[in-house]
């Protein structure tokens, strides 16, 4: 039985481990410490935790100041409010000023669940991807999240890290590597390349299994770093299979699907399909219901693959 664990738990545990080792680490939150589980860091290191209040722009600006003051700040808030409201602050005092600030967007994707459309961040990756110097990281599960936090801390420069709230299957292994900018190849195949990011990896594994039953050999690549994207791995796999399906718990506009299509269309145009949320807002619902609602299931991935496999003349 696959273990279920919330990515935010892995985030919080890693934060505390790093906090023990590195005194220059400080954590800021915008009145969501309980929900973001940064309150556990606060309990352990009260002098290095700062609740800036319900003010995301001030949060990001203050974090930039901490970086100028020689600290390594992790600025936490709900992903949509953080990336939407404080975009300009990230653009000017974080990225343009090249400050070593870690931006952590919580409640990501469908994990905001019943809060409804206002709270469902489906555009945050797109926004963060456009900022020069910003590294964008979207881990698959709690275990990969722990590795990601360590890598993010060690990385010199601005990073956006996307963290989900609700439990999802832990599908990566302790021995899997995590190198920023390097995609992980999970399964070799010859008919189609399925590229996923974030928590969709578990659905991709299910889809690959289903495709195998149907005699389709899928190559599975997990892209935890959407920016800088691992062009080499993507191009190599696309050259081998000739078909690409991207899968993300985020809008297909500007997210992983866009990033991969940019790489492919510039270097070797390849037929592709993008599984993700369409150009629309969300609704209230349980996370599982939302994954169905948005069409983010293994069955949707299988359908996208089968569309690509149909002979060109039949399309």
């Amino acid at each position, binding site marked *: 039985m696959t273990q279920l664990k919330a990515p935010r738990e892995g985030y919080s545990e890693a934060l505390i481990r790093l906090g023990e080792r590195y005194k220059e680490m*400080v954590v800021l939150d915008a009145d969501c410490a309980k929900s973001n589980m940064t309150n556990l860091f606060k309990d352990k290191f009260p002098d290095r935790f*700062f609740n800036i209040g319900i003010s995301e722009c001030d949060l990001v600006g*203050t974090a*930039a*100041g901490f970086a*100028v003051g020689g600290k390594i700040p992790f600025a936490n808030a709900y992903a949509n409010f953080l990336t939407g409201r404080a975009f300009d602050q990230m*653009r000017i005092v974080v990225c343009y*000023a090249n400050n070593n600030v870690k931006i952590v967007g919580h409640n990501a994707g469908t994990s905001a669940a019943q809060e409804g459309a206002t709270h469902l961040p489906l555009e945050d990756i797109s926004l963060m991807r456009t900022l020069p110097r910003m590294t964008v990281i979207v881990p698959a599960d709690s275990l990969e999240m722990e590795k990601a936090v360590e890598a993010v801390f060690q990385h010199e420069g601005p990073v956006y890290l996307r963290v989900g709230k609700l439990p999802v299957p832990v599908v990566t292994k302790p021995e899997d590597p995590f190198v920023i900018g390097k995609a992980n190849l999970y399964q070799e195949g010859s008919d189609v390349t399925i590229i996923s990011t974030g928590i969709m990896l578990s659905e991709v594994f299910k889809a690959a299994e289903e495709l195998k039953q149907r005699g389709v050999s899928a190559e599975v690549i997990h892209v935890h770093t959407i920016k800088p994207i691992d062009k080499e791995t993507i191009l190599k796999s696309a050259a081998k299979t000739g078909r690409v399906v991207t899968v993300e718990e985020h809008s297909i506009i500007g997210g992983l699907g866009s990033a991969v299509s940019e790489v492919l269309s510039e270097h070797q145009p390849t037929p592709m399909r993008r599984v993700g949320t369409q150009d629309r807002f969300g609704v209230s619902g349980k996370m599982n219901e939302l994954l169905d609602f948005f069409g983010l299931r293994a069955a949707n991935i299988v359908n996208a693959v089968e569309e690509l496999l149909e002979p060109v003349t039949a399309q």
Partner: protein
Amino acid sequence: MNTSVQTKKEEELMAFTAEKLAHYTEFTKKIRRHIVKMTHKAGSGHPGGSLSATELLTVLFFEHMNVDPKNPRWEERDCFFLSKGHCTPVYYSVLAEKGFFPVEELMTFRNVDGRLHGHPCSEHCPGVDISSGSLGQGLSVANGVAMAAKLDGKSRRSYVMIGDGELQEGQVWEAAMTTPHYGLDNVCAIIDWNKIQLDDYVENVKGLADLAGKWKSFGWHVIEIDGHNLNEVDDAFREAKATKGKPTAILAHTIKGKGISFMENTHKWHGLAPNDEELDIALKELV
């Protein structure tokens, strides 16, 4: 949190000696000459709000800021953030005179291959502590540095200059709540209150009402001064340093375009460079 306020009595504040006063009176004219010359050369830029901030920035950098021009990133330095980032003509002039880069470089202002961009860039320009240009962000950054300094037990101070029109940006007030909440008496906000913004008088665009009352009610120690009076400016920075338990806001009444007759008190010179003829007149007035 310690909210007790200790301020020095006025008689304890040290006025400039006649010699020093004469020096800075001449020196600020020199800064103003740089401002009009560099905007003229560039063919664009923001002289109005630079001329209003001249005494404030001169006295701050030459009398109060603990910085090392030879080591701009010195970890013990005081920080300054030009939140009204468009006023680079005065900022660069003061940084150059302080020794962060050659004075001749001022004539490369806004050049594509130079490092003195239209708005300050901390990556390229020595002495600039943060990039700015999008209004409203400086105080948050000043708070962050001040919090880091408190955490490390360092005595470094954090200064930020905010325009009066800029106070219409909501983030300023988010940050103004943060500063006293964390007892950041190492933060000093300077409001260049020249009464004019890009389009019109501030009062005609979106008025500030009781500005001193606003800062006081947010928990700040407020000092209201004539921002062109060198003694008052110097005293204000001393009082800010001596004020413990809460941050200080210096509300400096200034004149936009100060020092050049045809630039004074008009929004026309917010973001306009003088032509050849206007430069000649300006330089004559600044002798």
